């Protein structure tokens, strides 16, 4: 599913969260429906482990649920959710380092990248396959660079957050985000270039 999302303070997700924070219990399902895909995708690309990504997505929204009364009206929900998700992921890496390292080695990723999960049903099979291969190559390359650089790249380019929002999510300065993203671009260019050269030979 190709999704264009607003990440300002006035997206449907932010409005649903505002209603939930104001006391409308039924809006919780809407908050989950509007935000879970983005968080789940982010987490799955981060940990490359679907069951773990589902667990962490659930925990992320449970934390948001617990903090319901603390929500500031108009605050963008996605950067908040990404911050919680990333922190949970880092905690899970620390506590289950060996298990997570095993999951990094999962080479399949077939369901994640299968054409039926992607939007643009009318596109040709060749185009979808090329997209899937490119996405897989980028994911593989991102898995080889430091987590902080990969997260900066994913949040900026994958999730469409602004530099200020990525800085808030990652708990760093805007300058550091630019530097990490730049280093990620350089590393990606090198790694993908090596891949193309390898195919050419």
């Amino acid at each position, binding site marked *: 599913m190709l999704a264009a999302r607003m990440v300002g303070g006035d997206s449907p997700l932010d409005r649903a969260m505002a209603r939930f924070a104001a006391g409308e219990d039924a809006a919780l399902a809407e908050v989950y429906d509007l935000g879970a895909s983005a968080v789940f995708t982010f987490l799955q690309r981060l940990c490359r482990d679907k069951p773990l990504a589902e667990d962490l997505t659930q925990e992320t929204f*449970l934390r948001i649920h617990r903090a319901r*009364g*603390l929500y500031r009206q108009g605050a963008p929900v996605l950067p908040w959710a990404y911050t*919680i998700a990333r922190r949970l992921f880092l905690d899970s890496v620390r506590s289950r380092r060996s298990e997570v390292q095993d999951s990094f080695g999962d080479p399949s990723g077939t369901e994640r990248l299968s054409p039926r999960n992607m939007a643009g049903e009318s596109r040709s099979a060749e185009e979808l396959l090329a997209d899937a291969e490119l996405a897989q190559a980028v994911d593989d390359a991102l898995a080889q660079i430091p987590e902080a650089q990969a997260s900066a790249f994913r949040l900026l380019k994958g999730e469409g957050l602004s530099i200020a929002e990525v800085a*808030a999510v990652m708990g760093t300065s805007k300058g550091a985000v630019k530097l990490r993203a730049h280093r990620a671009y350089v590393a990606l260019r090198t790694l993908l270039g090596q891949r193309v050269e390898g195919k050419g030979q």
Partner: protein
Amino acid sequence: MSILERPSANARDRFLQIAARQTTSRPHAWVRRVFLASFGTTAWLVTMLLVLGIRRDWNDLPMPGLATTIGGLLAAAVLASLIGLGRGRSMVGSTTEALSIVAWATPLLLLLLVTAVDPLGPSTVATKATPVGYLLHAWPCALLVFLIALPFMGIGLFVRRELVLSRPGLAGACLGLAASTWAHLLIRVHCPLGGVEHAVLGHLLPLLPLMVLGAWAMRRR
């Protein structure tokens, strides 16, 4: 634009079931917490002021110096509290830049107030001008600052409950700094001992362990 995937329908149902059983903060909890924290801070300040009392040479102190010290400490304490406890634009705490500025600038400001300005005048109680003498006079004040600051830190941790921060360590250090500055303000009003050495060792130094304690407490939550 991003290719998004969905968690399974089972995961959604499981989340909604757990959420229905989970206790959650009530609407407008933040406003109530801030009000309670302000009330608690004021109540603790007044209580400790009544218990400790005002320094005996208060009436002899120069008014401009007194205003500078009290005003500077009050401003530093309020600023560190607001930045350390702020929810930030994205609900993940104040920005790293703001937290870093407070964490570096506030101790420097306090050091400036204590050393360069030293507006509360000379000591009315003689101190022995040896390192051991300074330490002997400083440790009760340092302990008092530390103990007075703990409830302030508890109040800050209460306000912060259930919020996930992007820089918990730095925010916790700012909270420790704010707590020690409130305590420093009280002890400055109470302690009649002047002198840079006593002020640095007895009144200012406890901010270091309090910053470390704040960072540790916030990271552990």
